[in-house]
């Protein structure tokens, strides 16, 4: 390898200083600290449990990242998970086979997402309001579908449930992570390496700027929300087999997903963020939570930590920015001092 590091360093350093790199560093730090402090942490058992529990949030974070990058938000994801588990559960009670029920559930998820998408993209309603509405609507339909029943994985063919809990050899990595990685790869490619994804950043920065370079704004939004529904449906399938299908499945999960995505550096204003960052955000929260739980730190502390991390992650950069600007101004003033001018202040 050629030794031109001196010339390359700026780009190299710049890459190290990106938010993603910083997040990954934080994740590594968390892992190292947890492994050092907790003897049982670094084990395949942790890997297995932690990742399996994180699957829903990891998956939901993928479309959420894209949606937030375009400046929108989807609060209905958890309810969509709910309605798809209810679909599987109630079809199971009606005597359906597992696979056909899953197909119907995926369809339900797509429809749920498309309804959001159509209202937001074509009717032009604000996504925050629409998805608050569908959050209630889809959860309501979940109740209608499954009522007071609880349908658990024991109802399904042995193969599916054991597949969910199967691990890759002795590593402890669940087989389903393969699916998560696949989905993540799809979203990473779509966002970072396709014309469509490039358009999403433009869209998130400014709708006008995107329109001028030929992004079809309504369709782009429509597809994103539909994709969000589909992914939520996959999570619903996972949920019904790993946990159970009930009316309260995934209740309140939307805020967890959004918090993790924002922690992962995706800007709520749109236009900034990466899939890797968002996934790292999810993993940071899951690891901290898991490690603290292993120490039997009460959940109360965990939610305070989650909230604080979220605030620090957005306030931090803005404080750093302000400080940097102040230093710059001070430097300028040193070279060209401001005339002592303090007259009527305020009047």
């Amino acid at each position, binding site marked *: 390898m050629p030794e031109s590091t001196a010339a390359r360093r700026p780009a190299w350093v710049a890459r190290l200083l990106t938010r993603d790199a910083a997040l990954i560093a934080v994740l590594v730090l968390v892992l190292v600290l947890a492994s050092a402090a907790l003897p049982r942490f670094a084990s395949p058992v942790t890997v297995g449990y932690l990742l399996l529990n994180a699957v829903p949030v990891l998956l939901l974070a993928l479309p959420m990242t894209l949606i937030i990058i375009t400046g929108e938000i989807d609060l209905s994801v958890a309810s969509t998970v709910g309605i798809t588990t209810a679909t599987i559960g109630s079809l199971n009670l009606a005597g359906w086979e597992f696979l056909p029920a899953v197909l119907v559930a995926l369809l339900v998820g797509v429809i749920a997402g498309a309804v959001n998408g159509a209202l937001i993209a074509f009717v032009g309603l604000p996504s925050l309001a629409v998805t608050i509405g569908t959050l209630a609507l889809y959860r309501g339909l979940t109740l209608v579908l499954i009522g007071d029943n609880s349908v658990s994985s024991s109802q399904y063919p042995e193969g599916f449930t054991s597949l969910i809990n199967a691990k890759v050899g002795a590593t402890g990595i669940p087989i389903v992570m393969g699916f998560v990685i696949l989905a993540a790869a799809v979203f990473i490619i779509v966002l970072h390496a396709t014309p469509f994804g490039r358009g999403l950043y433009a869209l998130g920065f400014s709708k006008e700027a995107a329109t001028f370079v030929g992004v079809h704004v309504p369709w782009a939004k429509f597809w994103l929300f539909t994709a969000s529904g589909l992914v939520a449906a996959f999570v619903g399938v996972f949920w019904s087999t790993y946990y159970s299908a009930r*009316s309260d499945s995934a209740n309140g999960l939307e805020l967890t997903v959004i918090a993790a995505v924002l922690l992962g550096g995706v800007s709520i204003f749109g236009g900034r963020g990466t899939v890797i960052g968002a996934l790292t955000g999810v993993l940071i929260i899951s690891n901290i*939570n898991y490690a603290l739980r292993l120490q039997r730190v009460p959940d109360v502390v965990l939610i305070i930590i989650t909230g604080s991390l979220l605030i620090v992650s957005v306030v931090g950069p803005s404080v750093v920015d302000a400080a940097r600007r102040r230093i710059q101004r001070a430097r300028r003033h040193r070279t060209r001092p401001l005339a002592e001018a303090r007259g009527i202040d305020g009047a």
Partner: protein
Amino acid sequence: GGEAGGGEGSSEGASISFIPKNLNNPYITLELSGAKEAAEELGFTYAEAAPLDAGADSQIPFIQTEVQNGTQILAVSPNDPDAVCPALEDARAGGAKIITFDSDSAVECRDLFINQTSVEGVAAGQLEQLFDQIGGTGEIAILSATAAAPNQNAWIEAMIQQIEESDEYEWDLVATVYGDDDDTKSFQEAQGLLQSYPDLAGIISPTTVGIAATARYLSTSEYKGQVALVGLGLPGQMKEYLDDGTVQAFALWDPSEVGYLTAYAGKALLEGTITGAEGDTFDAGKLGSYTVGPDGLVIVGELLKFTPENIDEYDYISF
């Protein structure tokens, strides 16, 4: 895993972990106080962990981390009877003894189930109290916890069966509603019941949150004294309503005894005194000796029925 599983015979210094449905609920706090007391008596290392809400998914990570911590006795009140099974099986594979208390998992996932009192007993007790107040006719309704709560649903099922089988009970069960063990929601459900069913004669609420919220609503409305309310309630919380006449009787057991017995059952399992088979007997400290019933079921005791006359004897069931 693999670090659990103490030696046969002695259980001194063994670890026991309690995972109730959720924390921050007075009923559960009482339960755990009994558990802690027993653990101290037995010289166990005691731990408790639970989520803040009673979701199926939120409880599982706690079971998992306790499994990983190598706890030797795992006592769980499952929020979902089947969803907890994979995690419980992992625990068992690691050598831990599994006990469910308060609500049960699928039978094959645990060694013992410590139930307050028999499902039939709970159902019968509440129906009797209702019968005493309104007789055998009229419209009645049930206000439960969450729609999928296993123990609630078991009691409701038993009540419906007993009403059908009995010749005295000619009630018309018009509705079953769910307050989700949420004070506000239960309150509004109670209110909705009275509005929808003007002729309602009585309400059964087999949950401490539900009965308190319903009593609060009744006591603040014109229905006070008109509509009978029975169910499972905490004496400390319900005394007010007994005093003001909103409620004439309600029932419960001593929650701390459930926790207490669970810890002793754990000791017996760990020491190999019992295996969970029907007919096994074990010693439970101040509670005396207990015998395992079919399907690994252990019943703590009888339903305690509270009335204005005896309520003051039970104020220890409080905090």
